[in-house]
């Protein structure tokens, strides 16, 4: 079966610095792949190369067997690839519901049909379902900027899911989230994976979160793949312990 995502020999240079150095991997349907590594090892740069935010210096990306290298992020998103960022990226002046409607509205019809069509692009009920799914129901009409950090983080993740993506790339979803909210987030991600068959790639520093959520883990160090395997194998890998996990 064709992998959902194929990353082949991606290399990204910034002047004399090589941030990502020939990274290759595949992500299969329904998989939750974790990418870990010390700060500055090229995880976010790799994400940006996959998602069209940066043009790789070398190498290529395929989505469902189709080459998508250099494709614009908005076009990739419409192909079913969604993402979150390391830092919160919501629209604080819009309501929670409007944030979600915005996240889904560009997936149907044309610009013209969106102008003359319904105000909510027919997404209110879908947005409300997503709000309930992420347990934010009581906040639907609140301005997103007024929510707590953890609630904003849930909204941020919910926005990546509303259009029913095939592949979601999550950049440090657990960063700055308290333990209760973290359990809720993990629970929602697992449910989404199980119920809707979405495939995830997750960058994360929280090892408990990664090891309990992911089915496979890749370790990056200095822009290269250091190790790849099941969570238990990664935990026991001496090279990984030396470079990242510590004793």
């Amino acid at each position, binding site marked *: 079966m064709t992998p959902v995502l194929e990353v082949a020999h991606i290399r990204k240079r910034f002047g004399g610095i090589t941030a990502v150095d020939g990274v290759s991997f595949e992500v299969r349907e329904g998989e939750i792949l974790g990418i870990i590594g010390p700060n500055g090892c090229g995880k976010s740069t790799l994400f940006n190369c996959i*998602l069209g*935010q940066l043009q790789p210096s070398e190498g290529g990306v395929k989505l469902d067997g189709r080459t998508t290298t250099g494709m*614009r*992020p*908005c076009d990739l*998103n*419409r192909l079913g690839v*969604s*993402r979150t*960022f390391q830092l919160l*990226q*919501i*629209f*604080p*002046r*819009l309501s929670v519901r*409007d944030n979600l*409607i*915005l*996240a889904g*509205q*560009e*997936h149907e019809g044309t*610009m013209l049909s*969106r*102008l*003359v*069509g319904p*105000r909510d*692009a027919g997404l209110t009920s879908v947005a409300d379902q997503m709000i309930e799914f992420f347990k934010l129901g009581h906040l639907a009409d609140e301005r997103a900027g007024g929510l707590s950090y953890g609630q904003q983080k849930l909204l941020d993740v919910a*926005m990546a899911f509303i*259009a029913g993506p095939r592949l979601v790339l999550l950049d440090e979803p657990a960063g700055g989230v308290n333990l209760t909210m973290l359990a809720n987030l993990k629970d929602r991600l697992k449910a989404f994976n199980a119920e809707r068959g979405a495939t995830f790639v997750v960058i994360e520093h929280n090892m408990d979160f990664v090891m309990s959520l992911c089915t496979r883990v890749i370790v990056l160090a200095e822009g290269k793949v250091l190790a790849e395997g099941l969570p238990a194998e990664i935990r026991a890998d001496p090279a990984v312990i030396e470079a990242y996990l510590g004793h």
Partner: protein
Amino acid sequence: MSHFLGSRASWLAGLLLLAFLLLAPLEFHRYGLYILSQWAVMTIAAIGLNLTLGYAGQVSLAQGAFVGVGAYSAAILTTQGWPLGLAILVAIALCFAIGWILGYPALRVQHHYLAFVTLAFSTLAFLVFRNEAWLTGGTDGIDGVPRPVILGISTKPHLAYYYFCLLVLALVGLAMLWLVRSPWGRAFVALRENPLRALSLGVDTRRYTLMAFAIGASLGGLAGALYAPLVGLVEPPVFTLALSLSLLMMVIVGGSGYFLGPFLGAMVAVLLPEWLRFLESYYLILYSLLVMGLLIYSPTGLIGILDRFLTHRRTRAASAARASLGASIERP
């Protein structure tokens, strides 16, 4: 603000304002009607800039130049015998096309860098208005711009032309309300607040940026096409950077990114100086102080004051509801 716009009080206020705008001018003299017509025309231009700057977050110092392009288009065509309606369509189309092209630099530069690009266009437009005498009449401008006859009614009387401008303003206002409440409006806000995230959510930020410039510019052109018959004379000094700055002030003072902002901002910029004229030579000093004071008190403009008040009232009501709920739970 949606609560505000949707409330019964706002509808009542709107109806009262409409009644005032329809009935009060019946008692106005020639100059009063001229000023009120100018308010309507400049509000249309400010609505356009509010879309580009206020909603989509793209800085533009070229709106005055688009008013100029529209005014010259209407003046050139109507003095050649074209009906104003057709001249308006040409002005809108021309400004839409120029605005679209001017939007391209916004795909690469932002903020004050973009302001300088649009400033350069503004200067270029002024030079064309002044130097290309074969087309624009040069420093003499174009005189004798006729007012239209609409459905057999001449708009030569000031009152008739005022109602015509008010009708166009109402149509533009309704169209803009539709636009900003549609998915496009949401996409423009996303473009302003976080273009990176918008792009990752499938929003074609390139196309929306160009569209924000083009629609904003076309409304500037429409305002210009109405301005030309209002004054009857179109000449270069009107369309300098000062007009762009004045329109920018209307948007900022009224409330950038709020639907009603340009209406109020244009009142402050066009009507307030006239109301202060009783102060004779001091009126501009007081006017400047009032505007500065307002922006210090409320950087989000006049509508910002109202928004703060309504948010405060909502928060207080929610706190009271929570307190009463808490009390009822504690009571056995």
